[in-house]
């Protein structure tokens, strides 16, 4: 059984086809990298998988379960989590509250209008743990507005991990980071256990190639090449459209 | 006498007046994304200015132009000194325009008193003319011509001039317009003045039909709102179509369903909004 299976996915905006009959098959526990030049449709593919965009045609399966008709919020409950290329946090809240919201999303407690959120010790313990996991335990009470860019990237990942996903989609987790910050984030990602399948979009080849087991190359919404690290790097089409530049 | 034909032509007349009122409202809405709740006040203010100017001996048309300019100036002051500070904060803009409309209404009451003031139909347009063998108030026919002329002038400005191109670009995509170096803030001021001026001008033009009285602002604002919702914001053609649609709805609705007069006006607005929730404001959505 595959962890994530995408079949014949198509999407157009107006007349522009941004996703052309994309097929993707990710094995459980795999580390998959998706690369491609700007405008290749990588983030669109993520948005289609998470349901933030509706596909025109095609289907998606998560561990054998059909996702195609599930609304975006249900997909989260089925074990799909993601981070955003453009950091999407709750700016007025503390890091702890950000992660708490992430935890709450999958808990029935989210509908509770009566209890105090800051008295839910189990929830808070989990949230602290999720922050500690990305090395931000000491900043739990700090508002997002007073943190660095690198720290915010890690909060993004902490929020996704807090959801205990089966499949995790990372959208350019290294974008805009300094060398030190990259190392921190890479450590976090490398520490994610194997029961979480990871699909990552990344531009930074040095870090990405080190991480990836299989690579998919997208170009103009189409899968051009797919294979192991070595296969993809050696492929002439890859060199032509991507590495050659 | 053919009631339906009369109603149709009256719809067109009211549509013409509404177009003068709402073209500016629509541009402001489209460009600045603010529901300018002072727009009815601009209409009323223009009408009162017109009354005073006519009282000083100016001719009707000159008074209408001057009143339009006066209101445009007022609009410019409001934009520069108040709205300018609140760009992007819709809530604040709603509040501030509402507050200003309170103030304008009260100042008008103070200055011009509570009595309704009638505006004489300009000489030469008094009485009625025969169209298709039926008598129509000449002045109303004139309003149709004025509306069409102003629509054409606005269209020429938007479509044929550099300024117009910039406005269109900024309506379509404000962020991109900024990137390509358009001074969006100057456009805001210009469009706000233009919208206010048109509303003020419309106030004088509407004077001979509606007369001027406290509360005129609140009578006109919802109509402008309906026009813009039906026609879509930021589009001249939209306001033109919207104005005539509202003119028709209003006239036929009143004649056919008098009990539901308000529902007939606002239900179409609701339906459009509900069925095309992003269609009309979609460009603003991220």
């Amino acid at each position, binding site marked *: 059984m595959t962890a994530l299976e995408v079949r014949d996915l198509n999407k157009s905006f107006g007349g522009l086809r941004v996703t052309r009959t994309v097929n993707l098959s990710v094995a459980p526990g795999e580390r998959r990298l998706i690369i491609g030049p700007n405008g290749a449709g990588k983030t669109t593919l993520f948005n289609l998988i998470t349901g933030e965009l509706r596909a025109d045609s095609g289907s998606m399966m998560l561990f054998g379960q059909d996702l195609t008709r599930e609304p975006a919020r249900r997909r989260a409950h089925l074990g799909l989590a993601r981070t955003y290329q453009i950091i999407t946090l709750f700016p007025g809240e503390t890091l702890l509250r950000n992660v708490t919201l992430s935890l709450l999303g999958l808990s029935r407690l989210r509908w509770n209008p009566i209890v105090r959120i800051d008295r839910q010790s189990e929830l808070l313990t989990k949230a602290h743990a999720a922050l500690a996991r990305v090395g931000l335990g000491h900043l739990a009470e700090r508002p997002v507005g007073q943190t660095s860019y690198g720290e915010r990237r890690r909060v993004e990942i902490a929020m996704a991990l807090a959801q205990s996903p089966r499949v995790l989609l990372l959208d350019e987790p290294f974008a805009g980071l300094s060398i030190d910050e990259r190392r921190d984030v890479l450590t976090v990602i490398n520490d994610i256990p194997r029961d979480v399948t990871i699909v990552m979009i990344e531009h930074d080849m040095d870090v990405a190639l080190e991480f990836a087991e299989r690579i998919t190359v997208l170009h103009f919404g189409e899968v051009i090449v797919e294979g192991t690290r070595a296969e993809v790097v050696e492929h002439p089409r890859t060199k032509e459209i991507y590495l050659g530049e | 006498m053919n009631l339906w034909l009369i109603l149709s032509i*009256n719809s067109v007349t009211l549509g013409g007046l509404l177009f003068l009122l709402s073209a500016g409202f629509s541009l402001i809405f489209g460009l600045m994304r603010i529901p300018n709740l002072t727009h009815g006040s601009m209409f009323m203010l223009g009408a009162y200015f017109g009354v005073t100017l006519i009282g000083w001996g100016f001719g009707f048309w000159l008074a209408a132009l001057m009143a339009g300019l006066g209101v445009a100036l007022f609009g410019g002051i409001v934009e520069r000194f108040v709205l300018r500070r609140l760009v992007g904060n819709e809530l604040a803009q709603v509040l501030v325009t509402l507050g200003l409309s309170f103030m304008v209404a*009260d100042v008008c009451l103070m200055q011009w008193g509570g009595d309704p003031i*009638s505006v004489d139909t300009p000489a030469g347009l008094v009485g009625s003319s025969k169209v298709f063998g039926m008598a129509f108030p000449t002045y109303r026919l004139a309003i149709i011509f004025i509306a069409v002329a102003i629509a054409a002038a606005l269209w020429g400005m938007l479509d044929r001039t550099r300024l117009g191109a910039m406005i269109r670009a900024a309506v379509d995509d404000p962020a991109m317009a900024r990137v390509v170096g358009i001074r969006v803030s100057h456009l805001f001021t210009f469009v706000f003045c233009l919208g206010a001026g048109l509303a003020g001008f419309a106030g004088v033009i509407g004077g001979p039909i509606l007369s001027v009285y406290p509360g005129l602002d609140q009578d006109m604002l919802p*109509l402008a709102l309906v026009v813009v919702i039906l026609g879509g914001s930021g589009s001249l053609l939209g306001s033109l179509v919207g104005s005539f649609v509202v003119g028709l709805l209003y006239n036929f609705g009143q004649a056919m369903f008098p009990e539901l007069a308000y529902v007939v006006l606002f239900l179409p607005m609701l339906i459009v909004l509900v069925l095309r929730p992003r269609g009309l404001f979609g460009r603003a959505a991220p």
Partner: protein
Amino acid sequence: MNVRLDRRAFLASSAAAATLPMPAIAQNKPIRIGLLTVKTGPLAQGGIQMEQGVTLFLKDRNNKIAGRPVELLIGDTGGNPAGTKTKAQELIERDQVDMIFGPLAAFELLAITDYVAAHKTPILSLAAAEDMSQRKPNPYFVRASGTSAQNMQPLADYAAKELKYKSVITISEDFAYGYEQMGGFQRVFEGAGGHVVKKLWPPLVTPDYTPYLAQLSGVDAVVQGFAGSNPLKFMKQYADAGVKLPVLGGGTAGDDALLKSFGDEAIGMISASAYTSDLDSPMNQHFVEGMVRDYGSTPGLYAAGLYINGLVAEAALEKLGGNTDDKDAVIKALRAVSLTDSPRGPFHFDHFGNVVGTVYIRRLERKTGKLVQTTIKSYPNTSQFWTFEEKWFLEQPVYSRDYPPLKS
């Protein structure tokens, strides 16, 4: 500057009293009259005239009624019922006024009538709601202006008997005042053999009357009952639309205060009103002169109504020797007032506190360049029940949108 004793002036004077010893004030407690009027919003036109009327009256009396100084306390209702309630509470509970003049609109009065009755405060209102002096009377209510239909019933009589009209279309705002006016007209007109073909009800806020104007044809005349600024708009659009039918109007439709705003389009309109500025009596001439002198305008119903309220209060209080302590005595005295000379001519009150007086049928004309009303017939001693028997009248439902129904 005219004498205006509103609250600010009063505060100023009492502040002065705090520093300078003024024993006279303590000895002669002022009579407190509360005025509920509208000074902001769309109804302000009538409200401001009300204030002018009562201010002129107090000026004429040097702020003294029955030997006591008068303190006028003004509450701006903002033209809405909740505001009226609050201002009524302010006047009654905080300021403890002896009586209230106003309010203007029926919906304002209806919002406070129970409250005012519970506090036994006499209220002299202009609001014309029929049932206030008919099916739901308030024992503390006095109305010197009349019910909605009180002018229309004689107008219908005149239309049918003198003008010999056989069929009319009525048009009036879509609210109780409109229904009651046209109901009264219809009952009397049809009783005299006339026929009301159609009743049109434009909403109170109607920027454009043309959809209705297009339906006016095939009858002898049009009866309109508009109020506020609507008569202006209506007459203008009526003329513009080229409708040639004669126009009959009610009290507010042809109100004399509108004379300065009307144009030639209104010439020839025949209206019925409890007040006419051309009434040739010493009191009215004095009143009109005062209004022209102080405010530069011919007075209409609102100013006259409040001036007359002043006269009523004065007559009653003089009978009581200026004593306002017993409110039941005050209301009794108010309702017993019978004046032979007033701006509206002679009048007295029926047992509901509603006026019985003259209704004037006037034609709007241009004389020496000015628009004026010329009285063409008077109906003296007109009661709210017209010539109907009171008991029968009160058994009928109140005039409404569909009552009396149209006869096909």
